[in-house]
Each structure stands twice: as structure tokens, then as C-alpha cells.
């Protein structure tokens, strides 16, 4: 029954064909408009702003729209004679089907590129659909490696993928553990059961034993889940040194709060892309549950004044500066740069411009952009830890603002 909204009703059909006809008519007249004024660059901004992932989706949309407003306010895309961005906001409704439907609409409306997707499953589906129309697609977050290994020419991922994240996370985990005198030997993984969580769990299960950790148990759960008591009971029974959660925001918070409630205190909670582990919202709302949680995740460059300025502006709006915000902000800047170098809104030219991008004006600690097979080579995560109601970077050393506290001191 929940699929009904996606079904095409007679009215929707009429509306979309009417839109399509208008768009087509507009397209035919485009040269005339181009001569008259600098045309707007129509781009698709796709996020799951409703459904289970709505919070992350809304944060992503926030980052993208701030970037678009910034570019437009500063005089648009200079290389196109000050053409303004005209965003078409799409809601993937937290499902791959929803993402596909929006890509179809965006294509019909004549966008020149799409940014977003957020969840891996949505990115996989939406970029594939976009590929059918040779529509450039910039993945904002989606970390599953197959997003960029399918040979799709239109798909570019600005952020790091699983492989790099997992490797960094494991290297850093070993470093932190060694530094503390190797107190952690056993691990339990709690993951959500879609592409992201299950993929990560599989990866960890193969890699952790090679690095001297024993995986006691791997517990999957669906999204959404509103009850973690039994999962926490299992953790209590296994009594692992480390708990590694891999899930989205709501479930992450619930798991951490349930562990606190059931007084389960492992030596460390170490997440890889923890949905909430490095979220200011979580730290502010539940400081006790969040304390000492470590995360290997997307993080802005704290030494970049633009990143700090955006942080202040987002917080002044009463919003939280989560990774979705600065990842999407950076992706829009990246796309604006590519459109500028492409010299117009031709899809193939934008794709080529993205492929050859050396853009470095973003907010992330990645260095200049360099895409190989659609993956940005400099992209890497950092390690953070919640300490004294704030989020500190603990690794890599050149960005670190605090030393890791591990194992967690007794209560």
C-alpha cells in the first residue's frame, strides 16, 4: 500500500505530459532565449527529504540550496555570463524507486546535471537512470563502492567510498588501540540491513580478523527500527571490547541511548560512518549517550575559513552543521566549476569537465579534485571523538584537535 503514491494516476500523467510538452516547447525555443539573456543553468537537487532518511535528506538539501544561493548571490556562473542556478528540488522519499521517479522528472524538465542521492541504494538507482539520458550525476554521500565501479561515464563521487573509508577506519583503529596498549581484542558489529550497513559489515568481517580483532557477532536490523533492547541484550551477553555500529541517524541514536539505558559500557564505541556518531545534533540532544563515541566519517577541513564560515551561518539558522550540509555544499561548488569550464549546459561537455576537474575550492580536507573512473582520488574520511559535549578530530594528526580517550574511563 505504501507504494501507491508512486503509481501514475490519470491526473499526474496529464500534468507530467503537459509539463513535458512545455519543457519540449521551451527547448525548441532555447536558442532565442539564449540570445536574449544569459540562460539559467537548471540542475536537479535530489535528496530523501521524506521517509526514514528525511533528516539526512533535509540536511543535504540545506547544504545544496545554501551553495546555490551563494553562487547566485555572487553573480551566478561567471563563465556563462552570470547565468544563475535554477535548482529543481526532488524528493527520493527514502526509496530507490522514489529516486528514479525524480530523475525521470528532472530529465523531462531538462536539467543539465543532478547532485545528491544521499543513501547508497538511492544513488545506485538514480545514477543508473541518469546514465540512460547521459545526464551528469554527482553523488553527494552514497559510499557503496559499486556506485563508481559499474563503468557509468556520467557518475562522479566527490566523497570517499567504502574501500577507502574502511581502510582508513581500520588503520586508525589499530593505531588508537596500539597507542592505548591494545586493550581491545573482541568486536561486535551492529548494522542496518540495506546496501550501506550490510556492505560495511561484510567488509569489516573480512578485514578485522587480519588486524588481530575477533568478531564475536554481527547483528543486522531493518531501518526503521524502534527497539534495540534485544540487540543490546546480545551485546551484554557477548561482552565485546568494542561495539561497531553501522546505521543511519535515528537508529544510531536509539542504539546508543539503549546501551546507556541498559548500562552496557564496552571499552569503546567505534563507528565507521556512524549515522549520528559525529553529529552535532546528537551531541547536543543526548550528551551522555554520545560521550566518548569515536567515528570515522566525512568531516570538513577545520583549517578552511570557508568551512568555518559556513558552520557559523548554518548554526545561526538554528540548524546543525552535519556532514550532509558541507558535502552537498562542496558538490554544488564542484558542479558550478565544471559547468563554467564546460561553457554551457551541454550534458556531454559538463561530464567531460567533471572528469577533468581539478577543483580545490571545496570545504573538505581532500586537496584538489581528481576523478579516476568517477571516484575522487583525494577523498578521505577523518576520525572524530565526542569529548566534553563537542566533536574533536583525533586523526589524522595534521587536522587533530584532541587526543583520543580510549578505553572509555569507568563511570
Amino acid at each position, binding site marked *: 500500500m505504501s507504494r501507491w503514491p508512486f503509481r501514475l494516476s490519470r491526473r499526474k500523467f496529464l500534468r507530467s505530459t503537459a509539463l513535458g510538452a512545455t519543457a519540449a516547447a521551451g527547448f525548441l525555443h532555447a536558442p532565442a532565449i539564449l540570445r536574449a539573456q544569459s540562460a539559467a543553468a537548471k540542475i536537479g537537487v535530489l535528496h530523501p527529504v*521524506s521517509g526514514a532518511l528525511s533528516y539526512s535528506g533535509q540536511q543535504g538539501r540545506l547544504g545544496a540550496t545554501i551553495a546555490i544561493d551563494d553562487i547566485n548571490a555572487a553573480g551566478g556562473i561567471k563563465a556563462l555570463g552570470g547565468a544563475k542556478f535554477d535548482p529543481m528540488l526532488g524528493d527520493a522519499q527514502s526509496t530507490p524507486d522514489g529516486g528514479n521517479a525524480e530523475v525521470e522528472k528532472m530529465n523531462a524538465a531538462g536539467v543539465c546535471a543532478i547532485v545528491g542521492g544521499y543513501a547508497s541504494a538511492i544513488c545506485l538507482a538514480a545514477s543508473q537512470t541518469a546514465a540512460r539520458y547521459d545526464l551528469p550525476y554527482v553523488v553527494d554521500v552514497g559510499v557503496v563502492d559499486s556506485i563508481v565501479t559499474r563503468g557509468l561515464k556520467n557518475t562522479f563521487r566527490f566523497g570517499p567510498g567504502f574501500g577507502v573509508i574502511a581502510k582508513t577506519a581500520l588503520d586508525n583503529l589499530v593505531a588508537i588501540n596500539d597507542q592505548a596498549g591494545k586493550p581491545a581484542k573482541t568486536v561486535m558489529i551492529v548494522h542496518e540491513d540495506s546496501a550501506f550497513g550490510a556492505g560495511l559489515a561484510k567488509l569489516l568481517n573480512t578485514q578485522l580478523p587480519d588486524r588481530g580483532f575477533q568478531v564475536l557477532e554481527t547483528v*543486522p536490523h531493518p531501518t526503521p527500527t524502534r527497539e534495540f533492547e*534485544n540487540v543490546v541484550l*546480545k551485546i551484554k551477553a557477548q561482552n565485546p571490547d568494542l561495539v561497531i555500529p553501522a546505521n543511519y541517524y535515528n537508529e544510531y541514536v536509539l542504539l546508543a541511548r539503549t546501551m546507556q539505558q541498559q548500562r552496557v559500557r564496552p571499552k569503546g564505541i567505534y563507528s565507521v560512518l556512524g549515522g549520528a556518531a559525529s553529529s552535532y545534533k546528537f551531541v547536543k*540532544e543526548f550528551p551522555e549517550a554520545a560521550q566518548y563515541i569515536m567515528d570515522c566519517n566525512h568531516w570538513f577541513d577545520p583549517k578552511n575559513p570557508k568551512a568555518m564560515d559556513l558552520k557559523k551561518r548554518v548554526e545561526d539558522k538554528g540548524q546543525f552543521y552535519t556532514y550532509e550540509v558541507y558535502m552537498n555544499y562542496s558538490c554544488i561548488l564542484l558542479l558550478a566549476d565544471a559547468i563554467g569550464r564546460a561553457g554551457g549546459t551541454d550534458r556531454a561537455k559538463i561530464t567531460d569537465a567533471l572528469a577533468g576537474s581539478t577543483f580545490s575550492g571545496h570545504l573538505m580536507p581532500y586537496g584538489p579534485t581528481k576523478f579516476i573512473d568517477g571516484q575522487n582520488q583525494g577523498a578521505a574520511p577523518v576520525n572524530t571523538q565526542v569529548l566534553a559535549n563537542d566533536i574533536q578530530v583525533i586523526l589524522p594528526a595534521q587536522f587533530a584537535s584532541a587526543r583520543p580517550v580510549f578505553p572509555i574511563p569507568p563511570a
Partner: protein
Amino acid sequence: MLSPVILVPAVINGLMAGAVYALVALGLTLIYGVLHIINFAHGALLTAAMFAAFFAFTLFGIDPYLTAIVLTPLFFGTGYALQRFIIGPAAHGEDRGFLLVTLGLAVVIENTLLYFFRADTRTINLPYAFDVIEIGPAFVAVPRVIAFAAVIAVAIGLWAFMHWTDTGKAIRAVAKEKLGAELCGINVAHIYGVTFGVGAACVAIAACLLIPTYYVNPTAGEAFVLIAFTIVVLGGMGSIPGALLGGLCVGVVESVSSIFLGQSLGQIGIFIMFIAVLLARPSGLFGARL
């Protein structure tokens, strides 16, 4: 794995969750036992009540447990009106009519909710939602204990109502022998309405007990109704003690099997038990007494 440190809390958690299942099933079993209507709109009513409790909290800051005081009579009235003016007249007393009308109602309610509130999953944050009470080795969340106590109280109250009040006796009379009851001067259409109203009121209470620890979206009720149907068959169609015990059993089975089989597969245990009961005792644990 079988250590009491795990098993005892798992069983207690199961009992707490099962109590709410039982309350949803109570409404369903009553409507089935008396009206012989398989109420497909039960889940949609539950979702609607959850939305009501959700918005009472987010918009007006009213605690869900206080909302129950208003919502219970409101849903009783709604249920009464639905049966008296929509389901009853539209179904023409035919089983398949009831089936289609309640199914239609479910579609209308769910899609109205979807239209107004989108597919978003929403939760509320009560300040005491994560407070715990220690029961032996288990730390049980306060809202679950409240829910458990409330369900037991409602079940006892409902049982007393059915056995000792004139209306309750009339309901039982209609359930046993409709024509005879009518000949004795019982207003059958009114009793049908009352029964449906009581069923809807149960759902309203269940929603207020659920919302502190659960989420709501336009299809949130469906999960509970599938389980509630199982409980009704398990406990015996129309039996109040059957629904209560069946609910508690299902809660424990789900909780314990989710420990062994994992969160995603936990419900398999329920349906294995269900099939086993159907094979061994088709009339359910408590037969079809009322």
C-alpha cells in the same frame, strides 16, 4: 547465550511488548466475536490514533498518557459512528460486504494520512522515555511498564464490563444469538455500534501507549494488525483472556526468537507458533467462548 542475564530481560521485554499487541488484539477479537466482522480497518484506526497522539504532543505538548483520556471516548464515538452509519448500512449484513467495506475504509484512512502527513517516519522524545525500572537482572523502560500495567487494567475492565453490565450482557447475547437478542428487545444495531466503538477505543489506548517508544508513519499500524490477527486466532476468536494471553505469548516468542534469529527474522517465531497452534488446536487456546 541461554544465560538468565539475557533470557530474563528478553522474556520481560517480550511481555511488555506483548501487552500492547494484546490490546490491539482485544479490539479485534471483540469486533470479530460479536459482529463476525474481520475488521481490516483496525490497523488504519491505530495509525490514525497514533498520529493524533503524536500531534497532541508535538503541537500542544500534551503527554500521550493524558491524550488517552480524550482520545478513548473520541475513538469510541468514531467507531460507533463508523459501524452505525457506514459499515453496517453499506455491508447489508453480508460477510464479504463487511470485508470490502472495512478494507475500503483502511485504504481511505491510510491514504488520507499519507496525503496530509507524507510518508515520513516520526517519533516523539519524552523526557522519561529512557528512564528504567529494575526488575531482577533487567532494566525495563518506564513507558513499557506503564503500557503493561495499563493493558492489564483495560483487559480486566473490559472483562468485567462484558460480564457484569447490562450492555456487556447484551453484547454477549447478540454474539450468541442475534435473532433471540432482538426478540428480547435488544437494539442490535446499537449494540453493533457499541462493540465497534469499544474496539476502536482499545486501539486509541494502544496508540497512546505505543507512541512514547514507537514511531508513526501512515502504515505503522499494519505491522501490529498482522500480529493481532495471529493473536486472535491463537487465543480463540472472541475470547478476552485468550487475546491477553495470546498477546503476551506472542510478545515473548518474538523477543526470544529475535535474540536467536536476529532482529530482521524475529517474527518468524510468531508464525511458526501460529501454524503449530492451528495444526494442534484449531479453535485456539481458549476456544470461542465469550
